[in-house]
């Protein structure tokens, strides 16, 4: 509790220190007595301090319990009486005041970026900035300043039955700790190690969710325009006021979201929950088209989601394994085996060192050649990064008909499971241009092996590369996906073998492509990410998201001074942009580092910003309170002041100074 007493100017209540103090009745509703119990009446004098009121109140209730979290809430003025040393007079409380005595920490339903709802004790009396800090500490999320609370979008109350079945993870038993950083146990905060239930909660927080069913994606609210997106930003809570002051009641639902898109000092070792939730928020931003991307980018996002869900099932903890070490390890092992054997000369050893081969009959076709021969069968040999072919197996000792080096080539699949068509399309670079070559395989097994070989060879890796087997595996699982997609559709994903590719892309592509049409495209993108560890894949997803041109923009509809139409202000981590709603184009960009000062005229709710070079802009906010805009800008400037040396200490005061409005100072 606040112990600090500030000197202050009492000019407004100049009659302080009056000699006569009359006793009067103060009525206080004690929440713990139940809603129907009438208020408790206390006889007080105006010089009684708040602490004294509480003492009297507790004595009168005759309930023995820990009241330390309780405080008085003044209903009419919408404020807490937290300064216990202040007298009633100082607070200006008279007999007509309706006071409530209640705990400062109450349960809150918190929607996480991954779509899961938690129930936990949040502080209803401190500024939201601090409340978020407490929540993040409990959940083990570093850099809470990047997150904030958002009022959820009202769900259409059509089907109530579904909402009631929603699972809520309960964290209300977690003791409120005051330690600045929770002590870790088994890599998680100690309070999560208490019971298997709690461990399950932590797992939910720190492990990515499986891809959502396509219907779930389709059902979610999707902003259709910049203006829709702007409306969402009007829902941010005010960081400088407390939950009670913003009308949030016990057990209300709020969303915890990353609000400032400058993710500072991400360290996978410490940021398991943070990274997971960031990934989830990014994933949903992509799936719900909150941020635009191209089709190619969508396929890459789909591939990364597929990979992440697959790897997180096999690799429960986020651990980055060192690929280089594995390489050496396996190389040494295979070498060791050979050493034990019979090798006696350098040449023999070289022989043994060479990569494994593939040998089989395949059919080849060269579409660019004018011969209309169609597919012709040859004996193929895959060695190192090259394919050679011979008339027959018997002639494979001699010179091949042709040898094709696949290094740097493009490989594309052309598979139709139903028609049993397994085609590998190769585009092979040569000085004269690219040569097209198709290889036709007989069956799935053969296709997976040769395709995996071609994929690796195109990147300059041989069959001996330790990723060869996993490459084969992933090709198999994608073939399996195509199988299930063609036989049944609309099924919710059960396990990784039967992921519906519609779960990986936004609804736009559900309409554009059938699931089995998506499979080869996602597989194509998947080849470039299949070797990533879980952490690296999550990081890659976030990086690709960050590299999108519209990344980090929060939109607000504003009316510029002197303008007659609404326009959109985009607030980014480093700049403000002005977007013409009619054309949708960025008309103007202002960077914060050229900003000299900004002011809020709270009276007419207008923001005025001055930039270097005598550039002045002013606007009023349409879809959000100007406090929200002010907090965004001040918040980003605050984010830019963070430095590595002091990353442990959050300069809360500076934040409030930069973002605060009325109540901040």
């Amino acid at each position: 509790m606040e112990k600090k007493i500030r000197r202050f100017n009492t000019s407004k209540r100049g009659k302080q220190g009056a000699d006569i103090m009359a006793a009067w009745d103060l009525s206080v509703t004690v929440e713990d007595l139940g809603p129907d119990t009438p208020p408790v009446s206390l006889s007080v004098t105006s010089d009684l301090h708040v602490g004294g009121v509480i003492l009297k109140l507790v004595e009168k209730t005759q309930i023995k319990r820990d009241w330390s979290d309780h405080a008085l809430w003044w209903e009419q003025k919408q404020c807490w009486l937290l300064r216990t040393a202040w007298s009633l007079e100082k607070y200006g409380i008279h007999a007509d005041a309706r006071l409530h005595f209640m705990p400062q920490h109450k349960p809150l339903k918190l929607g996480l970026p991954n779509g899961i709802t938690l129930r936990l004790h949040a502080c209803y009396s401190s500024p939201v900035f601090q409340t978020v800090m407490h929540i993040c500490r409990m959940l083990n999320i570093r850099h809470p300043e990047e997150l904030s609370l958002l009022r959820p979008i009202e769900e259409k109350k059509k089907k109530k039955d579904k909402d009631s079945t929603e699972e809520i993870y309960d964290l209300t038993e977690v003791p409120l700790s005051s330690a600045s950083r929770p002590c870790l146990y088994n890599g998680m905060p100690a309070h999560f190690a208490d019971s298997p239930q709690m461990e399950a909660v932590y797992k939910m927080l720190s492990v990515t969710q499986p891809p959502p069913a396509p219907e779930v994606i389709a059902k979610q609210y999707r902003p259709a325009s910049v203006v829709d997106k702007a409306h969402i930003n009007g829902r941010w809570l005010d960081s400088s006021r407390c939950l009670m002051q913003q009308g949030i009641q016990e057990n209300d639902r709020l969303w915890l979201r990353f609000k400032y898109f400058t993710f500072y000092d991400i360290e996978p070792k410490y940021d398991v929950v943070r990274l997971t939730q960031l990934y989830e928020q990014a994933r949903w931003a992509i799936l719900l088209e909150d941020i635009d991307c191209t089709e190619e980018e969508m396929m890459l996002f789909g591939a990364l989601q597929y990979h992440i869900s697959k790897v997180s099932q096999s690799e429960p903890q986020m651990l980055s394994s060192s690929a280089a070490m594995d390489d050496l390890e396996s190389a040494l092992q295979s070498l060791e085996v050979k050493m034990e054997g019979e090798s006696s000369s350098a040449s023999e050893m070289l022989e043994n060192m060479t990569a494994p081969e593939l040998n089989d009959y395949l059919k080849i076709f060269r579409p660019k050649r004018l011969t209309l021969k169609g597919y012709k069968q040859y004996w193929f040999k895959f060695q190192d990064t090259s394919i050679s072919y011979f008339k027959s197996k018997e002639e494979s000792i001699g010179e091949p008909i042709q040898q094709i080096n696949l290094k740097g080539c493009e490989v594309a699949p052309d598979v139709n499971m139903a028609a049993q068509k397994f085609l590998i399309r190769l585009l092979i670079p040569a000085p004269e241009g690219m040569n097209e070559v198709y290889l036709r395989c007989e069956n799935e097994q053969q296709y997976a092996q040769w395709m995996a070989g071609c994929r690796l060879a195109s990147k300059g890796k041989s069959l001996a590369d330790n990723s060869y087997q996993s490459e084969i595996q992933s090709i198999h699982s994608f073939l399996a996906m195509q199988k299930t997609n063609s036989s049944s559709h609309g099924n919710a994903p059960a396990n990784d073998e039967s992921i519906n590719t519609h779960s990986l892309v936004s609804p736009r592509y559900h309409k554009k492509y059938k699931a089995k049409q998506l499979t080869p495209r996602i597989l194509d993108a998947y080849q470039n990410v299949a070797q990533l560890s879980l952490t690296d894949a999550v990081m890659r997803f976030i990086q690709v998201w960050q590299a999108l041109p519209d990344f980090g923009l929060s939109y607000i509809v504003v009316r510029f001074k002197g303008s007659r139409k609404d326009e959109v202000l985009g607030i980014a981590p480093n700049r403000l942009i002005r977007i013409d709603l009619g054309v949708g184009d960025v008309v103007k960009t202002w960077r914060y580092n050229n900003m000299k000062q900004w002011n809020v005229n709270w009276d007419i709710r207008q923001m005025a910003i001055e930039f270097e070079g005598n550039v002045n802009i002013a606007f009023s906010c349409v879809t959000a309170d100007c406090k929200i805009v002010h907090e965004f800008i001040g918040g980003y400037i605050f984010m830019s002041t963070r430095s590595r040396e002091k990353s442990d200490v959050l300069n809360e005061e500076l934040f409030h100074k930069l973002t605060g409005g009325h109540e901040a100072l």
Partner: protein
Amino acid sequence: MIVIQPPESLHELEDNDLDALMADLVADLNATEEKLAAEIKGLKTPSPTTSDLPPPTPASSAASSLPPPPPQNAKPTKEEIEAQMKADKIKLALEKLKEAKVKKLVVKVLMNDGSSKTLMVDERQNVREVLDNLFEKTHCDCNVDWSLCETNPELQLDRTFEDHENLVEPLSAWMRDSENQVLFQERGEKYEVFKNPQNFYLWKKDKRALKDIKDKDKEILIQENFCGTSIIVPDLEGVLHLKEDGKKSWKQRLFQLRASGIYYVPKGKTKSSRDLVCFLQFDNVNVYYGKDFKTKYKAPTDFCFVLKHPQIQKESQYIKYLCCDDARTMNLWVTGIRIAKYGVSLYENYKTAEKKAAVNSVWMNRSTPSSSNPSTPSPTIKDPAFPPPPPSLPAKSSSRPVAPQHKLPANFPPPPMAMDNLPPPPLPPPIDDSPEAPPDFLPPPPPAAGFGSLPPPPLSMNSLPPPPHFGGMDQSLPPPPPDPEFLPPPPPEPVFTGAGAPPPPPPPPPPPPAQAAAVPRAPVRPSGSVRKVPPAPPKRTTPSLQVGGGGGGGDFMSELMVAMQKKRGDH
């Protein structure tokens, strides 16, 4: 001029060249082979005994022939030591095996003055190492612009190799009769984006504003775009002329550069991301400058660039030709594509090049102190970056901290903006409508008093803008006192006025800027591997040869031998 030649051209080599090369190669190979043989011998002997559960081996036979003699009577864990030894040997053997297979090329590099130097480059060397090697040979000023370029006269293309690229690989793609060349040149555009990032990241702004940009703002741009979690590609968008596949005509299209590739807006569609059509992705292509395409391909201008697979050496429908209206646009696109393709490597290359240049300039300065770091307006030059203090706060200058400390916030890599750059937040309106904390709302803002009394004067406050004037309401209220100590943004240190905690210690002195710190140090990468290269052969006009061949050392050895014998026989 030429790098790769058919073996026949060995005859054209001058004797002393060949001898020098030969001697070097033979020595190199013999050593390798001998060692390898020794290794294998050594490895073989202990293997039967150490198989599964190894009893302590009398490892004398193995030890005799091996470089690291094993401790004869290792007491505690012989198994471990032996396992370790074995691992070491295997590792060594692996290295040797690799060594034996290393491909080497003799590369002739054309200098600016028309002369040339011949180098042997092995396939593990990257362009940076080759450049360092050339620096030693040429005594140039080693500035960051020095580049290796490849030209393709047939296609009229050229490009600079990136410093992290491997040199042998792209050269191996050249055809035997290729007229391609490797040039050693100063190319300003190579690292222009790091010298003047505003020209790329703020290209839409008017040119005059870009010229006057402060160094500090440049630094912020680099931080934002190259030092974050993700590399940001300049947001290029504009109409370019595209040469249609296999046709002679050029067609205009609206192109957009994204991190994932180049896209265009199809006719009648909007510019929204979802409607963009992918023109090309960067995985398998390099970007080249086109020379004189107006004549060659009837291009609208001569400012053309080309995207193609590095292996394509002749005209082909798989080459994409693009034409820009002016040189600036062309450089924007080529640089943007390089950023998208190479990402952070580009920036790392620059930093390495800059260090190299800095080391060299230190050397140069010993003799000629006036010549300083010629072409690198590096982030190390900071002081001019600071804007003059706002005139309205003259009183403050007295309380300004000492100069070096200004740099403190600017030097931390992560924050995109330095503290001293903070615009002051607006003051709260002096409305007293809350009984919660009355004192906070009284006219004189309390932070002034709080900070004024704290001992360490806030650092990096030197360029504070004037305190914000009040919004609409202020006329009716007393103006804030003209307190010279009143500094709107608080210091970086968290200062909790009321809390019991002691004031935090003043921040430590700033670390020297990264580049400056590196100056006295030796170059980062020792160029040891380059040392094997034979001494530079005398200049010659004949084309040089290809040595090597991925498969094995034997081939080129015998080839060389034959060539030598032939040559000798001729005499």
